[in-house]
């Protein structure tokens, strides 16, 4: 009996004891009808081959281990970025349980969201009654300033009309007539979570700017000097938005962050649960129409939102999750150009420090091959940074990336000698990536938590950058934007490189001659 009160064994150690190992071996042999181990080994080896890769890439219908989620997740993420706003997802309730769990597992924070809990009867008769009751309950219980409605695929398949339903709900007294209930149709079978972010944000902006679904006069734009800022769906939203606010502060820019969820996903433990915290005020959301320009940090999260804003007469500028020196340069210079404010010396010094750090360390990264996967903008941002570190991106994959994205990545790669041996894989999944890593190995893999299966199977060390990160804590509190953010990304990459060198040079009298104390 290995367990003891003195030294309690966790699952890590408990099941490795002889009692359990014997038991499990016996279970397998006697009852599992296991495959011949030689056959398992043969298939395991075969799955590493170019032949398997070819079959794997010939897949037309099956998706295995995708790196994307569905629209409503992005809608919920955007909605909680507004002051005292509760996301209300119209459709089946299980979906909401999933979004809340998913966000909580990444941020290690509460995630508040309600569902209209549609079931079979709603599938037949439509979900109008669920909307009427649901809005009334949410309004009374959670006292939100705004309820932002989106949809699950169930409501989309049966064709529920949010605009009409919300109107009827107001007529039935669920919420006051003038109460803000912006909405967005977010079908899970179109696009991904980044599309849902875009649709939800567009819905909210449209609501405030364009007459609240016909219930208020449209706003007239009187241009001012403010800048609107949109972060997009971003696992680093907490650290990033704070960093961006600091940069705006340093530059003396008057700004509005749209969908600012940096507070609600980082509330203190001090005895009080804050269901709501921070967020763009509804007044600011409305007044954002008057801004001089709107900056989106993620083009593919704002494909519909930015044209809507541009149509109201603002300049718009989109970036691709800018990481590193030149991407941050471009971001700051755009800010400076639009606002007419100079980039302060302090930021120039931060830039110099990042360049200093790159100069100190790039020898360890130069020429190393990387595979990257993640959301379309993040892939672009990381690829750009790797190129300026002298690394060689080799595989870049976005399950939710399309043809236009792939062309954009290719253009970036073409701009650098370090991007010459790289291929771009739009619409592919992590099982494709597995074949790539076996047949065209790289030194490091950058991706989210699910990359750990690729690391285990292919031996490619994983650098966790992306969403979701479930198995490492608190990285979302660090920015990856700005020069400071670039420094964080640099350190994460370097740490993994050094760990990897140490881990492969630590066998005494065999490989310990490279086990250096100074690197």
């Amino acid at each position, binding site marked *: 009996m290995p367990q003891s009160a003195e030294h309690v064994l966790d699952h890590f150690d408990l099941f490795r004891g002889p009692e359990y190992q014997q038991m499990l071996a016996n*279970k397998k042999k006697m009852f599992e009808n296991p495959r011949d181990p030689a056959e398992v080994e043969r298939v395991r080896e075969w799955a590493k081959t170019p032949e398997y890769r070819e079959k794997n890439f010939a897949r037309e219908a099956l998706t295995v281990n995708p790196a994307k989620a569905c629209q409503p997740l992005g809608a919920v993420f955007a909605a909680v970025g507004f002051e005292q706003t509760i996301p209300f997802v119209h459709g089946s309730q299980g979906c909401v349980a999933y979004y809340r769990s998913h966000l909580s597992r990444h941020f290690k924070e509460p995630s508040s969201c309600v569902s209209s809990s549609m079931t079979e009867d709603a599938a037949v008769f439509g979900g109008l009654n669920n909307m009427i009751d649901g809005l009334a309950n949410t309004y009374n219980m959670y006292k939100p300033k705004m309820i932002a409605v989106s949809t699950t695929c169930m409501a989309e398949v049966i064709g529920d009309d949010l605009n009409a339903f919300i109107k009827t709900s107001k007529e039935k007294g669920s919420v006051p007539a003038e109460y803000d209930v912006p909405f967005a149709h977010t079908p899970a079978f179109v696009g991904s979570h980044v599309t849902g972010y875009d649709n939800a944000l567009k819905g909210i902006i449209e609501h405030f700017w364009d007459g609240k679904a016909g219930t208020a006069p449209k706003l007239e734009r009187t241009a001012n000097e403010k800048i609107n800022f949109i972060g997009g769906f971003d696992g680093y939203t907490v650290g990033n938005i704070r960093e961006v606010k600091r940069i705006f502060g340093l530059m003396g820019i008057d700004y509005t962050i749209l969908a600012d969820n940096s507070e609600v996903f980082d509330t203190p*433990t001090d005895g009080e649960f804050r269901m709501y915290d921070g967020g763009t005020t509804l007044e600011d959301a409305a007044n954002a129409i008057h801004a001089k320009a709107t900056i989106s940090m993620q083009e593919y999260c704002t494909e519909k939102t930015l044209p809507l804003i541009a149509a109201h007469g603002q300049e718009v500028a989109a970036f691709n999750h800018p990481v590193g020196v030149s991407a941050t340069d471009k971001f700051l210079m755009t800010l400076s150009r639009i606002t007419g404010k100079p980039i302060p010396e302090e930021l120039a010094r931060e830039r110099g420090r990042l360049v200093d750090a790159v100069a100190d360390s790039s020898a360890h990264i130069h020429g190393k091959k990387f595979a990257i996967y993640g959301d379309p903008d993040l892939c672009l941002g990381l690829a750009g940074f790797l190129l300026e570190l002298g690394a060689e991106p080799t595989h870049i994959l976005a399950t939710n990336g399309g043809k236009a994205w792939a062309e954009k990545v290719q253009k970036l790669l073409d701009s650098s000698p370090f991007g010459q041996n790289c291929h771009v894989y739009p619409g592919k999944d992590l099982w494709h990536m597995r074949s790539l890593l076996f047949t065209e190995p790289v030194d490091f893999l950058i991706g989210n938590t699910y990359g750990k*299966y690729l690391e285990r199977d292919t031996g490619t060390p994983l650098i966790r950058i992306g969403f979701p990160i479930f198995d490492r804590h608190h990285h979302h509190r660090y920015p990856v934007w700005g020069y400071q953010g670039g420094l964080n990304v640099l350190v994460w990459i370097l740490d993994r490189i050094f760990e990897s060198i140490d881990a492969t040079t630590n066998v005494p009298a065999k490989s310990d001659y490279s086990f250096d104390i100074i690197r």
Partner: protein
Amino acid sequence: MSVSPTLSVAEIKDRNKALIEEVLKVYPEKTAKRRAKHLNVHQEGKPDCGVKSNIKSIPGVMTIRGCAYAGSKGVVWGPIKDMIHISHGPVGCGQYSWAARRNYYIGTTGIDTFVTMQFTSDFQEKDIVFGGDKKLAKIMDEIQELFPLNNGITVQSECPIGLIGDDIEAVSKAKSKEYDGKTIVPVRCEGFRGVSQSLGHHIANDAIRDWVFDKIAPDAAPRFEPTPYDVAIIGDYNIGGDAWSSRILLEEMGLRVIAQWSGDGSLAELEATPKAKLNVLHCYRSMNYISRHMEEKYGIPWCEYNFFGPSKIAESLRKIASYFDDKIKEGAEQVIAKYQPLMDAVIAKYRPRLEGKTVMLFVGGLRPRHVIGAYEDLGMEVVGTGYEFGHNDDYQRTAQHYVKDGTLIYDDVTGYEFEKFVEKIQPDLVGSGIKEKYVFQKMGVPFRQMHSWDYSGPYHGYDGFAIFARDMDMAINSPVWKMTKAPWKAEEQPLLQAAE
């Protein structure tokens, strides 16, 4: 540091009743009437907990419940390790449930084992418009090509499948025929069916009956020689290794476990289960259906058991042994005796640190009642409990065997109610899920996830109880809870505060 004031049972009942009245005030009248039926103060001697259950959640209240897909793919089928489970429909459902439940297994993932993978048909608009049957058929071909060592396929339906009129049964039958009778199981667990995960469990159980049991040739030779001591573990999902720390006890007492349902389970084990002499059932809620079916069709008795905490484990081992001869009965006594010193040592170490601490639970399946004994073994008291998706038979078992007079009962609790109850009762520990964890920790209340064991476990069996005790101590007596108030602000607010 218990913050609960010492109250008599009568005072507790009055407080709890007042608390229920108070939370109901927040609702519109119609909702208050409906929610009132789910909240109660347990009266000793009553046959159930006096709450309505297994009825629709109310829109907009922030229910904690999930859906039928979660009950089938996430709970029952997902852990069957040598089969490939297709999340059939849009990408999200499979993505959010991907490897999230810690159903431990042994196997070569991606080659002969597939639990921690996400297979999806990733529905696009055209699949909704034109139907997904052809795509599903092609997916099965591609699975056969790329994952040749899979022992079977299940189709886990997401919401759109039932709405667009796809015939997944026809596709499954045709492909099964094409692949020499391969086990291919269509499961109609669309998320909008039923009121919670619970119907998904039932649908998944029925799918095993119809598409696994009923396909076994009656004259098929058994894969092993039967013995009089063959049992199957039903309703243990091997979270953190729970089924393993249970199996070892059954084997030590002389029984032979021929199948695990479904944690670390395989198709062969499902198929062999009708040969068992007894089905031992841990999660009654999710697998009573198949147990009843096997009783009716194959004459296999089933026996509920509880492997949380030494008191219930000993009681359960004896109960299981009572179905067998003296050899097994003696075996049970030997097992109990063998682990007694370990249990004594665990209790001696942790009980003094946990004595008198109060707990509020809100979980799924069997846990709102089953873990009460384990807390009591540590001198702790469960002062409130409720089921996410329980039925009245769960509340009957709870009332008759577990909860104390005056316990606050909340069925399908809403976010608002749970926060208010905890704020007012101020328990020393809350045990619930990931969606609740950070809410209560912000309030300064120690918390353990009682679905995933907070990434710890196992909690079942004697080996698991040591971990359970250690974890509860770690949660409650962590120094962090002394730091939640800035010292210069210590007197400003009550200790716990729910969001307004």
